[in-house]
């Protein structure tokens, strides 16, 4: 009996634990428990650091909470515990519980510093995109080409998010995480993003890319992403710095394409942009 209980107990614990550490891309909300592993070189390192520090905290927690619970269970007055009032301090214990945490901190710091140095190494990028935050949309410009466009909340989401719109958000695909013109980047390429803003501070965040960075008026920030070559697809995020009334409604959507697809997309975009410019020149009244 006890044995079956023990067995089902461990099974349950294992399921719960698996839930907790499982990467969260399940569509159901209950499964959204942890940081995504992500699809870039850096996001995996960042996820690794996150899990390392998480398990350190679990280990310290087991010790500290175990101590507290043990003390609370063992030294109850209702069970006749008598206080040892001579126990005032112990230099040895105090030195130990100062030095061991310092040691653990060093163990945490070294890998964290390594990843940080990688993050800051923005050399040898192959493509630079300027990202500008506005209240409340993003502008993307592919530096060195004429290609540039704005990216705003998709129409369907925008209709549903009005106060008492009567539209069920669950009926809208990718509610609040869909835009008209997603940013397009090639997979397997080190892409440099230059971030700035036109009005107030915004922050550009795609959890699957492992990073966010503030877009600040008057300053240009830099970050880089390198999506794994096989991880093409659509990734979604949001503005992460309070930027006014519609802060919750300026999503970031990125289409990651293979290099070839990206080149043809860029060429088509260039052509379209040139044609639009020509049309504008021929008929100035339009502009």
């Amino acid at each position: 009996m006890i044995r079956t209980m023990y067995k089902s107990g461990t099974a349950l614990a294992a399921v719960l634990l698996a839930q907790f550490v499982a990467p969260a891309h399940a569509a159901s909300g209950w499964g959204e428990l942890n940081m995504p592993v992500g699809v870039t070189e850096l996001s995996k390192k960042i996820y690794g650091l996150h899990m390392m520090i998480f398990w350190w905290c679990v280990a310290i927690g087991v010790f500290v909470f175990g101590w507290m619970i043990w003390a609370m269970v063992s030294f109850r007055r209702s069970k006749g515990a008598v206080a040892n009032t001579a126990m005032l301090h112990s230099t040895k214990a105090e030195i130990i519980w100062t030095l061991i945490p310092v040691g653990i901190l060093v163990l945490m710091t070294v890998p964290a510093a390594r990843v940080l140095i990688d993050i800051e190494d923005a050399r040898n990028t192959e493509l630079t995109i300027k990202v500008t935050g506005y209240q409340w949309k993003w502008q993307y410009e592919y530096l060195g080409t004429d290609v540039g466009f704005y990216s705003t909340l998709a129409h369907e989401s925008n209709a549903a998010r009005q106060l008492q719109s009567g539209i069920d958000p669950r009926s809208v695909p990718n509610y609040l995480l869909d835009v008209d013109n997603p940013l397009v980047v090639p997979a397997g390429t080190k892409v440099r993003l230059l971030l700035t803003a036109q009005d107030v501070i915004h922050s550009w965040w795609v959890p699957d890319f492992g990073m966010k960075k503030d877009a600040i008026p008057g300053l240009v920030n830099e970050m880089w992403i390198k999506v794994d070559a096989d991880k093409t697809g659509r990734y979604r995020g949001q503005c992460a710095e309070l930027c006014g009334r519609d802060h919750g409604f300026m999503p970031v959507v990125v289409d990651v394409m293979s290099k070839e697809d990206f080149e043809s997309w860029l060429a088509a975009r260039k052509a379209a942009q040139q044609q639009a410019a020509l049309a504008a020149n021929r008929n100035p009244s339009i502009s």
Partner: protein
Amino acid sequence: MATHTHTAAAHDDHDHKPHGWRRWVFSTNHKDIGTMYLVFACTMFFVGGTMALIVRAELFQPGLQFVDPQFFNSMTSMHALVMIFGAIMPAWVGLANWLIPMQIGAPDMALPRLNNLSFWILPFAFMLLLGTLFVPGGAPAGGWTMYPPLALQAGDSFPMMIFAVHLMGISSVLGAINVVVTVMNMRAPGLNLLRMPLFVWTWLITAYLLVAVMPVLAGAVTMLLTDHYFGTSFFAASGGGDPVMFQHIFWFFGHPEVYIMILPAFGVVSEIIPAFSRKPLFGYESMVYATAAIGFLSFIVWAHHMFTVGMPLAGQLFFMLATMLISVPTGVKIFNWCATMTKGSLSFEPPMLFAIAFLFLFTIGGFSGLMLAIVPADFQYQDSYFVVAHFHYVLVPGSLFAIIGAVYYWLPKWVGRMYDQKLATVHFWLSAIFVNVLFFPQHFLGLAGMPRRIPDYATQFADWNMVSSIGAFGFGFSQLLLPFIIIKCLRSGAPAPARAWDGAHGLEWELPSPAPFHSWEVPPSAAVIERGAEH
């Protein structure tokens, strides 16, 4: 006859106080001022709590059901300002007023008229702040952090908020000066610094932090004001200013501010745990040094609030290391409390329950704080609900639980009556359960990618937001028990003895209950100090 007159005069000396409104408006008495601070804090706690419930009601499900996004932003901003400056800080000043003179053997605070002023500034500050709800453009909606350029987009609320912050700052600095002067000059003869109760110690260090950083905040918001109205451009990039500089200045205030709200809580817990373990505090001196170390470190970690603004690598490394170092003295404290309980004789009256919940839940907040210190991981956590969960874990089951624990611990001393301990235990369990239902799921939301300060969210965040909102309403309504228990105690509580808890030590327990209007008119004798100052 002569004897009679003599006694009457003596009685007059001891208990002379004006009656009616004059007693409160003109009060120079540390207990009356302390009461006013605590009543004010409690009122603001419910005002700020209502704002939080408006936020959580809107977030109960995806879509916008109740409020406009701008008003939602006002609610998050005002909730923070009201809770920090209106509830937690005044509650600590109120407790300092009530307790410090009794604990150090003084008759009153050193500067009683200043004390009156520092309280009476507050109602005006909050009339200004809450008045912004009714002006064109609505209340401040740029976050309590007031980051420019967004903060400069506010309407008429902007100068009102700035002046309200100025007034709160003046009030806090005056209160802090009073604490420093009282502790330094009014201690009973023989009560040297290293025999003071830890609540006095932690408050002394808090007072120094307040004096150091509140003027920095005043400077920062004044620069905002001149940027807005007088054409300066401290923070406007178009005029050669730097929006990030505001964040540096703000957090140079803001991080010590965090410790201003938590250090007195360490003090309270260091009093309650020994009392209900019936055993002196373990490692008293290392507790004092750890508090001082935390106070010092709080000045050199501010930029960990802004890792994503773009900083040089060396800067990021420095602030990461300094931040992680804070966990060392904090760990010393946690271990000392655990060691205090070890080999004690524990009982679980309401103050002890709140102190133990503090121990567990503050530690969880400490863990998430350690995670946030790791810069690369912070690039994910920053400005997500993970941060919201973190600071609410240190502020609600941290500071707030310590304040409630303190009230339940010293209330019998203040009013001379015992409260309904069963009901207070119910209050504890409701608070402890709902606070976790409220805040624990926010860790998941943040890790899964939900940014903070958004009025509406993608549907994959719906389930845990609903849980969190249920926790919020449960927690909020449970808190109504606190004033109910206090009022019931005042009306019909059984008389409490001078030493209301058998394990309680400290000079305040050597006074009769309720404590006399003027605490120690004659300094306590060496023997009384000896008995009281056992840690």
